């Protein structure tokens, strides 16, 4: 199944870079284990809304990895859910404040006849330290990295 795995976030904004780290590590481990599958594409992006939707075109499946700020769970908590479980809010990486939400963008794309996967899973890691410019993750979020990597690898399988 042609799959795209996307790490979302800003890699220079502390814990906001966790999505990138996870996807980079998954790609590295898969390469090391010589489990390379030409059907699986990895990308790290700092985008949302229409631009994110445009990156999904042509794939049958997508896995999106991002930070999440609910404030309800400890930093580093990992959640996995289908996109349908994500509220269609107008902020966050799945949106762009300068265009629209990913859900709306996907609907626009489909109306235009674009092939956008119906199978989109989200792996979200709770993080609060996203307002300080830094290439480092906080301790709690860094500790969640191996588990998040494992989660994504299992989803790929």
């Amino acid at each position, binding site marked *: 199944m042609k799959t795209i795995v996307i790490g979302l*976030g*800003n*890699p*220079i*904004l502390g*814990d*906001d870079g966790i999505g990138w780290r996870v996807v980079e590590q998954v790609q590295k481990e898969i390469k090391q284990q010589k489990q390379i599958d030409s059907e699986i594409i990895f990308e790290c*992006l*700092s*985008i*949302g*809304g*229409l*631009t994110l939707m*445009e990156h999904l075109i042509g794939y049958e499946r997508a896995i999106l990895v*991002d*930070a*999440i*700020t*609910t*404030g*309800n769970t400890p930093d580093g908590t990992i959640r996995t859910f289908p996109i349908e479980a*994500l*509220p*269609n*809010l*107008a*902020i*966050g*990486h*799945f*949106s*762009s*404040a*300068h*265009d*629209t*939400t990913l859900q*709306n*963008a996907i*609907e*626009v*794309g489909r*109306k*235009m006849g*674009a092939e956008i996967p119906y199978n989109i899973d989200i792996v*979200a890691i709770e*993080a609060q330290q*996203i*307002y*300080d*410019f*830094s290439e480092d993750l906080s301790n709690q979020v860094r500790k969640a990295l191996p588990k998040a990597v494992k989660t994504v690898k299992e989803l790929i399988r």
Partner: protein
Amino acid sequence: MERITIDPITRLEGHGKIEIFLDDEGNVANTYFQVPQLRGFEQFCVGRPVEEVPLLTNRICGVCPEAHHMAGAKAADAVYHVDPPRTAKLLRELLYSAFYVTDHTTHFYALAGPDFVMGPDAPIAERNILGVIHKVGLEIGGQVIQARKYGHTVIEMIGGRKVHPCTSIPGGLTKGITEEQRKEIEEMGRWAIEFGQFSLSLFNDIVLKNQTYLDLILGDIYKDETYYIGMVDEQNKINFYDGKVSVVAPDGERIGKYAPDEYTDWIAERVEPWTYLKFPYLKKVGWKGFVDGKDSGVYIATPLSRLNASDGMATPLAQEEYEKFYETFGDKPVHHRLATHWARLIELLYAAERWVELATDPEITSDNFHTVPTETPTEGVGIVEAPRGTLTHHYWTDERGVTTKVNLVVGTTNNYAPISMSIKKAAQSLIKKGEIVTEPMLNMVEMAFRLYDPCLSCATHSLPGKMPLQITIHNSEGNPIEVLKQNC
């Protein structure tokens, strides 16, 4: 005193918050527009080779990385005292023109469009790009996607990547384009011109021919008489990539033009205790508070201000639209802020025309796209017009070219004071004693800042855990008496 909070602002980059304070009679006493602080970016850039900084700064923001890359590249040129060859300048401006078409298209159809096509008081679930497509036709959506696709293709061809370009270095570019690519770029640019014309005719049919909208644009709710700034070429025509920044007073008098390295003579920043973001103002006029008029140094840097600060557009079709714009208002400068949406579409057409002009320049495919810097690096300033306003990057380095200090005045920051003023005026006009505050009323307050397309906390988002819009009304003791939450 009652207090209404809108937090965070719908469709605004980052988590902004509007607080509206009512007096005992229920009228708006004051408003505050607050944004979160992003800490330490300038320090983060210190201690790095200056050629890396344009790559880092384009990571500040997921919306206009091209603008940061260009301003950073120009600042790095200046640090090394190197003038890139003409082909490099043409290519950078070509990339930038394609970016403008993409960015302005997205703003109009996804952000401004819903308010006008669907109406400011349409159900919130319909006030988005899907509503626009549903009402105007499926073909519109296809054209928006096509415009974005073409823009991204040009950005990738010249900038090396679709979203975050990486080819500008001190002295020019790391690569040029082939004749085959040039032909493709020209063809896409010609399509973009037609799309720009179509967008203006759509605006004409939907907005200008609708008396209600026209009255809204020409009315006083969205009007402030401030200074205007924008970059112009030697003929005082708008240019997004190069030139001097023209400064025009509320009465239309041009009080001067400044080169990038003169910006500190013109722009100063005011600190207020209730917000992290500073308020830039014109140093030569001075800070008189959040007031308009010729004695107040508050200025705007937007598509509207660029039109007001220039003597016209450098391309023929956009110039025709420019003339029509000022004929409609009957005066210059135009102080009606909602006219920014119209100005943005005129700029879109200009960018498309400029795209073709540059793509058909005989030197665009030359392989002379880089001059090797030979001088000792010191300090430099680069300015471009970002879609949201004048963008200034200022770098200092040691003799090895390693940064020792970085200062940025970003597009939207210029507009912080006028945005705050526009919100207050709209709130005071719309929220009156004794009336129930409704969602459409709050949307019309939001329209006061949405026209600026503000981008305050570039790329800071993580997934939201809260509702995007929260309105809290407090009684005179400061206790919340009603909380409204909604999706959009």
